[in-house]
């Protein structure tokens, strides 16, 4: 469970302080799939950096499982849009990187990783270097790196943003199935309204910078959802609501 209270963050730039996050509050229950949606450059990535423990907030608190002192670095998964596999490691050695950093023996880690290769669509590529993989496979490998570490909470920063439309749809379906199987707590940052509606239980809408949470939307569409759901009138209604929020807050700040 993630709980964020009154989180604010600003960066100092050449022309003074620039506030990025302004009093952010939100909550993600254990096993829940929540999306955060907002315009590009609104500070979504900064928010994930803070949750992951990579960056510090100026004020406010981040609680994991009701614990403010939870050691977040190393225990919260963080999958980015960029390809962050190490080019000198084979696929197998890339996915065990986290375990290796925790000083699990390589043999043991590799053995464990092999069990997951099929589920993550990486079977047969264990000993290849990452450049051989397709964009979708690279994202799955990065995801597996987190799953192998038993990171229960996984933050996804536009993980499918760089993929073509068809691959993106396949990856969304794959992610959804995997989430049902593993039951992780997922926070997905995206600016794709369809993606957010298809996958999440709830959606938080963020405003332009300085970002606030301007709307919380419960996605009460029945599961399982597929790409046929997009034509569902209920889906259209939610999407319209979401888009209205996104546009409204944009014109408000312009």
């Amino acid at each position, binding site marked *: 469970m993630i709980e964020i209270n009154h989180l604010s963050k600003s960066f100092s730039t050449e022309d003074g302080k620039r506030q990025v996050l302004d009093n952010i509050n939100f909550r993600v229950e254990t096993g829940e799939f929540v999306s955060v949606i907002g315009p590009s450059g609104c500070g979504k990535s900064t928010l994930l950096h803070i949750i992951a423990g*990579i960056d510090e907030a100026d004020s406010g608190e981040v609680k994991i499982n009701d614990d403010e002192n939870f050691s977040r670095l190393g225990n919260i998964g963080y999958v980015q849009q960029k390809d962050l596999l190490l080019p000198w490691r084979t696929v197998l050695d890339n996915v065990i990187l986290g375990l290796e950093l925790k000083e699990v023996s390589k043999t043991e880690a590799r053995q464990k990783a092999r069990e997951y290769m099929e589920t993550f669509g990486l079977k047969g590529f264990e000993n290849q270097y990452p450049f051989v993989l397709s964009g979708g496979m690279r994202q799955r490998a990065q995801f597996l790196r987190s799953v192998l570490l038993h990171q229960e909470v996984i933050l996804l920063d536009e993980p499918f943003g760089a993929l073509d439309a068809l691959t993106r749809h396949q990856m969304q379906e794959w992610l959804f199935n995997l989430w049902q199987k593993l039951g992780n707590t997922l926070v997905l940052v995206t600016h794709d309204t369809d993606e957010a509606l298809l996958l999440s239980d709830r959606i938080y809408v963020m405003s332009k910078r300085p970002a606030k949470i301007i709307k919380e939307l419960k996605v009460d569409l029945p599961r399982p959802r597929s790409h046929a759901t997009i034509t569902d009138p209920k889906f259209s209604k939610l999407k319209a609501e979401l888009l209205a929020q996104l546009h409204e807050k944009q014109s408000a700040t312009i």
Partner: protein
Amino acid sequence: MKNNLQQFKFPEVRAYSWIAPAFIIVALIATWELWVQLGDIPKWQLPAPSAIAAELVKSWSLLLHHGYITTQEIVFGFLVALVSGLLLAAALVSSKILERAILPLLVSSQTIPIIAIAPLLLIWVGYGLASKIIVVALISFYPIAVNTIDGLKAINADMVAMMKSLGASRWQIFTKLQIPTAMPFMFSGIKVGISLSVIGAVIGEWVGASGGLGYLITQSQPLFLTSRVFAAIFVLSVMGIGLFALAGLVERLMLPWYYAEKRAKKANQ
């Protein structure tokens, strides 16, 4: 993708890439030979390639003896440069203060001609192996250190964030991210440094020595043993090429991923 890789192992481009330089070398040697023979140029002025080859055969034990001395100077000098270059690079990258204090010194040290320092080394450490090792180390140290510094700095912030989110310590980030990232850069520096080390050894011997191929050249020149000078130069250049190729081989063995990726990119173009 896999097919592309396999295809690329025997393309015609590679075979042809050898032919052009080989042809030019053969043509140059033939022109040289003809020019000397037809022009009746005296041997002490410019020996023909055939005369140099004959000299190589005749003086091979002499060349071997002096070549061994020069090789020793190069190997030890280069190892000193490698170890100190890598250690200094690691130190400068891990401390901002050290970097600010030492990097300007390192750069300005390169404006001092080695050939001017070499005679001083004779005064300080004598005519033996040590002075040559120092000259070789001084000359090949710089490219290794500078390239490795660039390599250690070539990591991007997202990669560091990724390592941190997996729980990596600063040391783990250094060993598992920074060092592998720096490897191709380091090898560029090594390849430049190892070629320079041959020059360094010759400079060291010219200034004052009792053996080595550079010494052999300075001894043969006043006696107008020009073919022997050429024979020594030939051995030196073979050594240089050999050392460069060795560095390239070690690089290929140590960075298979780097070459596999490069080949695949080329094949996809």
